[in-house]
């Protein structure tokens, strides 16, 4: 019984974080700020779902199930790289940031 609560907690927490990250895409005003959503929120969002999955499949009696951790590992390697490349491309195109951004590198 407590396992079900734990699993639902992790999955719900992960889903909420992913949802907030997506809301960030619509609410934040410029490209550089919108990058923060997917770079961070997806990692913890997916991390929460993974934790739920590990607990669910490990407690069904088929032994420990850890291969979900690889998803987290690959995501941790790829998410910052894609965010970095997207930011670098935006800088290259001199994509404008909101007025109040300080230290714009192309001025």
């Amino acid at each position, binding site marked *: 019984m407590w396992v079900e609560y734990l699993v639902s907690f992790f999955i719900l927490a992960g889903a909420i*974080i992913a949802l*907030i*990250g997506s*809301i*960030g895409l619509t*609410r*934040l*005003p*410029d490209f*550089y*700020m919108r*990058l*923060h*959503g997917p*770079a*961070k*929120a997806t*990692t*913890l969002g997916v*991390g929460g779902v993974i934790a739920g999955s590990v607990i669910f499949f490990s407690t069904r009696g088929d032994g420990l*199930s*850890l*291969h979900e*951790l*690889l998803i987290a*590992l690959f995501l*941790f*390697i790829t*998410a*910052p*790289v894609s*965010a*970095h490349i997207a*930011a*670098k491309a*935006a*800088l290259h195109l001199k994509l404008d*940031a*909101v007025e*109040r*951004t*300080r*230290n*714009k*590198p192309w001025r």
Partner: protein
Amino acid sequence: MNPDSNPNPVSNAGPIASESPLKPRRWFPHKTLSVYMVIVWLLLNNSISPGHILLGAFLGWLIPWLTQAFWPEALHIRKPLLVIKMAVIIFYDIIVANLILAARILGPVNKLQPAFVKVPLDIDHDFTIALLASIISLTPGTVSADVNKESGYLLLHCLHVVDPEAEIRLVKERYEAPLKEIFEC
């Protein structure tokens, strides 16, 4: 076609080829990578049966051995205990970063003060810089946007920062200093 503006590629190949001579083959070129590959193999198969351990160990030796000419200079972890401590710190920071980010996204968006921050780098190995940039992107309020190795700085975009100097100090003390200690001494 002007031959002066389009130099013969063969004459350019000389110095590049002599800079990276073929190294003699070693039996265990990347020990850390081999251990890591065995662990990934066992996780992929979701099993720790003796057969998979044997097969994983064989692949963990074979693949680095076959591909060793393509790998850059291997880095040695000098302080394994510090790696664990840093992993815990980063894990904690990722969770905190997400909660802070969630609050900022749902809060008043127009009051955020974004800024670009240049962090001067003390580390100079490609791998450690890539690691630092990844850690920075995953942790509170910052995404790495550009790296310039010649002048040695990392350009970050911060979602909300009041004091850029404090942000630079935080990055250097919390993430760069331990990385330097682990890999470069």
